[in-house]
């Protein structure tokens, strides 16, 4: 099944969805990222931009230069091409789980019946995959949350969690880049700005990259937060 042919689904006359599956699954996402890399490498004429998501790749194109059918044929031709996908980067993000951050930890403790320290240790020990961005610039959807931290979304959204909030719900994790009312639970906060238009690397992680969190205390959070405000990336790429 893993290498079943993708479904080609038109999204109007200037976009095509290449769907590899319906689930959140690293194997499916690998195929999304591989096709994305292959298109970038081939520099397909008429393709304007691509949007990798959990289980599909949306390809936006200029209908003057390419038809939907022509694009599908060109994609079929890519199959045999040598795709050398760059090794995913791994980013180490400082994260604070102590008050005043991680403001929903008490609720998560009560719902999951796990002690606070266990929740933090689980969240901070996982290796996460960047599956996609959505909602707002730099709003990062992650996979890899330990199953023990699976928690249902709230029935009604909570008040906006601050930018940098580390949120969990529905077996997924994310890093919020902007404050928003959310049905997810805030368990910690990173001082790092995933998106900063002033940096040369505006968005820290590429889709397919990995994130790990490194626990810091509130004093370190404040210092790194000030550095991030001043334009420092604040996250280290692991060798």
């Amino acid at each position, binding site marked *: 099944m893993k290498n079943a042919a993708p479904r080609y*689904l*038109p*999204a*109007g*006359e*200037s*976009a095509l*969805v290449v*769907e590899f599956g*319906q*689930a*959140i699954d690293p194997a499916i996402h690998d195929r999304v990222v591989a096709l994305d890399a292959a298109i970038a490498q081939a520099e397909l004429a008429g393709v*304007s*931009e*691509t*949007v*990798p*998501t*959990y*289980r*599909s*790749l*949306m390809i*936006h194109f200029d*209908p*003057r230069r390419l*038809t*939907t*059918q022509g694009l599908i044929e060109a994609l079929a031709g890519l199959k045999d091409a040598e795709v050398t996908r760059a090794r995913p980067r791994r980013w180490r993000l400082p994260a604070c789980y102590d008050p005043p951050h991680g403001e929903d930890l008490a609720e998560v403790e009560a719902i999951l019946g796990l002690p606070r320290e266990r929740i933090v240790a689980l969240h901070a020990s996982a290796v996460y995959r960047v599956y*996609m*961005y*959505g*909602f*707002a*610039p*730099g*709003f990062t*959807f992650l996979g890899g949350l330990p199953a023990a931290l699976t928690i249902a979304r709230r029935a009604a959204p909570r008040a906006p969690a601050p930018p940098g909030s580390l949120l969990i719900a529905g077996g997924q994790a994310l890093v919020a*880049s*902007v404050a928003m009312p959310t049905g997810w639970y805030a368990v910690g906060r990173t001082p790092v700005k995933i*998106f900063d*238009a002033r940096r040369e690397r*505006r*968005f820290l992680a590429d*889709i397919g990259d990995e994130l790990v969190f490194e626990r810091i205390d509130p004093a370190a959070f404040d210092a790194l937060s000030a550095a991030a405000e001043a334009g420092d990336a604040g996250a280290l790429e692991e060798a």
Partner: protein
Amino acid sequence: MRARLRVLRAGPGATIQDGGRHGFLRFGVTPAGPMDWTAFRTANLTLGNDDRAAALEISAGGLSALCEDAPLAVAFAGGAFIWRRDGVLLPQAARLLLRPGEVLAAQAGSFGAWAYLAVEGGFDAPLDMGSRATHVRSGMGGVEGRMLRQGDVLFADLLPAAARMQSLEASEFDAAIDAPWLARDAEAFRVVLGPQDDYFTAAGLTAFFAEEFTLTPRADRMAYRFEGPEIAHARGHDIVSDGIALGAIQIAGDKKPLVLLADRQPTGGYPKLGHVILADIGRLAQMRPGEACRFAAVGLTEARAALFRLEDEIAATPSLLHPLRREPTSKALIEANLIDGVVNALEGSSQYCDWPN
């Protein structure tokens, strides 16, 4: 001296827009850009601008601006807005040479939700991730990432050709734009099915194309929500998030269509029945809450053909200019075939001038 426009009054929703912010959809960045690309392009091409040059997008809340310091070549087009120069009525779409001290004003007229005011060379605003398009929600582009307000001063990014244009007498330059594609049109909006049309029941799809829908007040730059028959899902209304293209018809748990427009999020988690074709996006954007419409299914070939036909028509805009007299007399108004439009426009204005507060 650089020509500039001082905003005297701006209704809610007036922003700077260009061809949109491209290349960052994958990072969650909204493309923005004009709601009605056809009117936006018409105004720009009339001035010889690039068809993506930054222009003002004006909502039904209207706008008035004062020309300062130097003459300014402008063009406007959109829905049937009421445009005036120093209080004197103008056509619905026109090219003008504004003189310093003159005030150009727009207010909502008999139909339409958006109008565009372009200047020769485009408006000068800082490039924000490659674009001047304003996206208020993320605070990007335009003037400080926000809607325009009283006191904003907007500069034209003049091209070398400006000197030539400005040497013209206004009488040679002022012209009405005859753009039939901007007229009101009750035809159904054409829709290409997919990518998740298989998430709906046959009865749901039939209802979508057979019945009438009404635009609700929940209509902004991000999306227009329609009221009408329920479009039933066959397999639930949650999908694992995927990409969203312009014109996507998303149907969530409320079973009502939401058409995603310029300020859409690049990804989302509801099934999309189809997409309104690009040729019909501008016309749909010009709807006002309370107005009714229908949708009709077409294939990709027809969608492309319709787009190319419309683009070719718009490209010919510069040949559709008719000289405009500076002080319109009743005779001139009749010649410009304006009387009907003006009467309708004035009737409509009292009803609509406050929308979309």
